[in-house]
């Protein structure tokens, strides 16, 4: 009987913790035994630098990583549970996303626009090749030049319901180098879409009205239209 109650309680705590964790996923994901990926690799590298982790940095969170993380947390006055949450990320000094573009010396600059563009590109076209990413960036810039859309890049990006990755927070993941490069190329004027204003994935559900536009081309998984 007690066991059942305790299991229910633990399940409840786990659900709440997972929900809390999901909010932070947009910035730095919560890592625990069994996680894998780039983020685990970064943690292992950092812990390795500081002497907590003696194993091979392979991006898989196993027993060695657990011991290293717990040891680090103990030494830093954090709850030593082996789970890398926001506090542990901060203590590791890895809170910011890995790719932050250099800040210009001048006061007026378009760095903010490039980062914003890169974010949307990452959110919309993370799985597309470089050409597909540049194409998404070009669509956003074409919209700023079109009379039917807002005039600024941020106006176009934050127009309600315009980009799904902005609406659901996916755009706030760490930005990859390829997305940054694509944003810079799009700002330089590269336009593989021939002036397109719309793009969508034909395999996903989309407003049928959009098919009445003049289709220009398809790049990767996206169809582009004017």
């Amino acid at each position, binding site marked *: *009987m*007690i066991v*059942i*109650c*305790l299991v*229910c*309680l633990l399940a*409840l705590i786990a659900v*709440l913790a997972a929900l809390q964790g999901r909010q932070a996923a947009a910035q730095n994901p919560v890592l625990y035994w069994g996680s894998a990926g780039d983020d685990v690799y970064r943690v292992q590298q950092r812990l390795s630098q500081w002497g907590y982790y003696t194993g091979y940095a392979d991006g898989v969170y196993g027993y060695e990583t657990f011991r290293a993380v717990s040891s680090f947390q103990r030494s830093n006055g954090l709850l030593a549970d082996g789970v890398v949450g926001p506090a542990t990320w901060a203590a590791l000094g890895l809170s910011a996303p890995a790719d932050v573009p*250099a800040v*210009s*010396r*001048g006061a*007026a*600059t*378009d*760095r903010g626009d490039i980062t914003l563009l890169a974010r949307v590109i990452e959110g919309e076209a993370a799985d597309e*090749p*470089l*050409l597909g990413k*540049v194409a998404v960036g070009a669509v956003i810039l074409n919209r700023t*030049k*079109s*009379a*039917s*859309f*807002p*005039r600024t890049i941020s*106006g176009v990006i934050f*127009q*309600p*319901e*315009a980009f799904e990755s902005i*609406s659901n927070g996916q755009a706030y993941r760490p930005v990859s*180098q390829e997305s*940054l*490069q694509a944003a*810079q*190329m799009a700002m*330089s*004027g*590269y*336009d*593989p*879409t*021939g*002036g*397109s*204003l*719309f793009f969508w994935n034909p395999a996903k*559900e*989309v*407003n049928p*009205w*959009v098919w009445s536009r*003049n*289709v*220009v*081309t398809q790049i990767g998984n996206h169809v582009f239209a*004017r």
Partner: protein
Amino acid sequence: MKKWIFAAVIGALALAALGTWGYGQYTANRKLENYLSNKYQRAFYDLAGQVQSLEVLLSKSMVASDPRLDSALLMEIRQQAAFAQSNLGQLPINDALAGRTAKFLTQVGDYADSLVRLVSRGEAIDAKHWDTLNSLYEQSAALNRELQGMQESVAQNNFYFSEMVRQVRSKLQKTPDNLARTDFQAMDKQMQRYPALIYDGPFSEHLERAEPKDLSGQGEIDAPEAERRAFVFIDRQDGAGYQARVTGEANGRIPAHRVEVTSDRGDGAVTVLDVSRQGGKVIWMMNSRPLGEQKLSIEEARQKAARFLADRGFGEMRSTYFLRHGNSVTFNFAAVQDGVTIYPDLVKVTVALDNGEIIGVETSGYLMNHRRRDLPKAGVTREQALAAVNPRLKVSGGNLVLIPDGVSEEKLAYEFHGKLGEDSYLIYINAVNGREENVLKLIETPGGTLTM
């Protein structure tokens, strides 16, 4: 006995915790819904107010006779239209519902802007402009009527914007069938009744229909020819074999064949190009191979880019500025005719800094504008033009250039570099009448110099 009570207590606590948390989430949700609905309301009411101002201002501008007053009215129209468009962009209605309305607002502001320039040059508003203003006035009156009608609905129906918020949350992509969206759609349909506006401004209709000047009069090419042209164009490296293949058509502003070129070098990179159907010229090229560490200097890369363009028949080009990103650098080149740098004929070349390979080219500016021009004669000398520059600047340079003015006009100008303290500027003095045309600020960033 005790065990049973213990279990019940734990269970009750767990349920209570869950309940509290659930309720907290619910109230937070309602708060956010309210907050969002209020934002939409503000945007809507501001939009209605600004469109009403627009109608009044347009009618005034048609009857005012003093050009100074006209100027002031037109500038006010431009400002109101810009705010109205910004507020429209904040409402959760997509291009299907309000695209034509947004277009009208942009064009009204833009048209007013072009008239202000006209007036400030000393020209008068003639009958043709008056007719256009009249048509815009009628459109704004229709839009105003629709919005006033909607304001009534909003006043009577408390849940107007909450409905919108719910729509946004559920993200249904079905055809709009509720009150709010139908109203906006009706408003947009009103706007579609009016003919397209054609004038000389960046948002004018005729920009969409511009013909590429560099391709005029040339014949169409077929797919095999496009493959051949692509093969000849790319920056072929020694010792590699290339295969070009047409993979589709692009029906963009300049219709083109899309060609993919693969090499047998094994780095898996594919170069994609668009070759125009008319005239068979490359519109853009992109090679997305991974880049290694920098081994070339910017100057060496610039020379490679210049030689690449010369070998492909672009004629005399002058490199204007560059922007570096990561391990590649993009140079801007402008065509030169009779010693005058022609800025609208722009080509961009991206060079990889690991081996100097040309990995990107963008020529749409060149294709749209390049032609043999009848350049006007310079009416003022360089010294006279220098006199027109602000005396506070330390000035150098003074080459003749052709700069774009508005959408289809071009002006011959002297280009001076001016320095004031730490800041650098580019000053353009009209070479025909000696007036200052434009001032650009040069902004140094780690990647290169930007002009604003």
